[in-house]
């Protein structure tokens, strides 16, 4: 479904992503791992168009999307959540998701119908599936950090993506929240037939959820394969899994 081919991105002299490759098959859950500064977030920003790549190609469903602006990439079926909470803090929880649903339904420029009657059912169904329906009228900025991270995912679902990209979905969460969130992600993938690409620091989560793992190091792809293959790779063992 998604192929990233030898992609480069540098910030002045620093090569943040340096010839990385990645393959995501339809319906797969793929994890990207690597130490801080390995270029994981930059890679996601390149795929979603937030940054422009210097070299290489990004193919989504057979189409080169590497030149498209973010809003068009989103319309092709890629939605994302962010590592650092990135929501609409002054809107209600409902409003946060509704903005995405309205955009998905191409109704954002409707000027004279009350928004409170539009896309209500779709929005509430998403809130229900992530467990935020009881907080739909709260101001998003007042939610707890954990709920805001869940709202992140809910906003991304509003675009009915085929590929959902989650940048450290459990960053800053307590262990209980973390396992609940990963259960949610797995459930959503099944329910909606989503393809998921995520990155995560917690190796237990990665190896229990992901069907394919890509290891990044200094902007390069070290290896991509099934969890067992990656686990048995000597370099990965030495560098990340702490095995002597």
């Amino acid at each position: 479904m998604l192929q990233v081919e030898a992609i480069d991105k540098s910030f002045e002299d620093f090569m943040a992503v340096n010839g990385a490759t990645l393959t995501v098959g339809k319906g797969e859950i793929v994890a990207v791992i690597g130490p801080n500064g390995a270029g994981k977030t930059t890679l996601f920003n390149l795929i979603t168009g937030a940054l422009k790549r210097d070299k290489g190609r990004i193919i989504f469903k057979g189409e080169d999307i590497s030149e498209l602006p973010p809003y068009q990439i989103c319309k092709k079926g890629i939605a994302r959540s962010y590592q650092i909470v990135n929501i609409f803090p002054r809107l209600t929880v409902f409003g946060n998701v509704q903005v995405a649903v309205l955009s998905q339904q191409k109704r954002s420029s409707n000027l004279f119908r009350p928004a409170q009657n539009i896309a209500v059912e779709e929005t509430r169904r998403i809130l229900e599936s992530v467990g935020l329906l009881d907080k739909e009228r709260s101001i998003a900025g007042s939610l707890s950090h954990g709920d805001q991270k869940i709202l992140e995912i809910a906003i991304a679902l509003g675009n009915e993506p085929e590929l959902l990209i989650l940048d450290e979905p459990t960053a800053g969460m307590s262990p209980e929240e973390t396992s609940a969130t990963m259960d949610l992600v797995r459930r959503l993938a099944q329910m909606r037939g989503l393809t998921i690409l995520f990155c995560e620091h917690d190796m237990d989560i990665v190896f229990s959820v992901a069907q394919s793992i890509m290891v990044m190091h200094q902007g390069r792809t070290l290896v991509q394969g099934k969890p067992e293959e990656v686990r048995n790779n000597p370099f990965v063992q030495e560098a990340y899994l702490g095995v002597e």
Partner: protein
Amino acid sequence: MIHSKWFGSVAAIFIVLLILPPLVPRFYVYILALIYVTSLLAMSLNLVVGHGGLFQFHHGVFYGVGAYAVALMLTKTSLPMWVGFIAGPIVAAITGLIIGWFCVRLSRLYFAMLQISLGSLIWAIVFRWYSFTGGDDGIHGVPIAPFLFSLNSSYYFILIILAISLILLYLILKSPFGTTLQAIRDNPQRCEAVGINVRHYQLLGIVIATFFAGVAGVLFVVLERSVFADLLFWTLSLEIFIMCLLGGWFTFAGPMLGAAIIIALRTFVGKYTEYWTLILGILLILVIFFLPEGVMGYFQNIFKPRTKEGIERG
């Protein structure tokens, strides 16, 4: 329940304003009408500033362009008055489209600087082009239909157009477009990521806001029957920006309150001292420190029913 109560008080205020003119001195009728005109201007600005998060620093230009469009049409052509009244907002909106098209390519302060430059350019043209715009003399004695001659009839005309404009602005704010615009204000980057072409919606917001600034310009001509280049000068733009801040720019009606406060200050304190802006300055400092959401925002927080959100917000 809350909705109908709210509707009731708005209707009551409107009725009071309708029966006021014969009961109060002419001067107050004039000041009220001036407040309405300026309110509409501040409200139109707030659509893009408070709800759209844009640095629309030279909004006065579109007010002036709307006013000059009517005044020029009525003095230089023999077109009927209504054509001029409709043309004013449209010319303002087209100007908004052109200036906005350049501005939305930049962000924040760069947006503001470009708009001040382009707006000042229009001001300079109006100020200097004596043969066409009358330069710094302005245009006086704009012919208006006899039924708008008396102060009271122009008061009613202005009040009714203001009411219609406010209803439209309210509907727009509550529409999907309004929601999207507020989302862009909160987080443009995230909007791009959910498939929203941010520039496109910002430009649409500017066109709508400048259209209503043009409506305010038309109302100014109805009230004053003259126009002058000061309408396009940047100090007026700053003043309406302050009205939004003072009244509460995250509220719907805040800018109207801000306009009323500033015009009342200028009129009544200005009578005693030409340094009335000193009081305005102190007031602004107090608002910024103690009422960061503006006067209207403060009252809204007090009177807000204690709902679940209220409790969660602490």
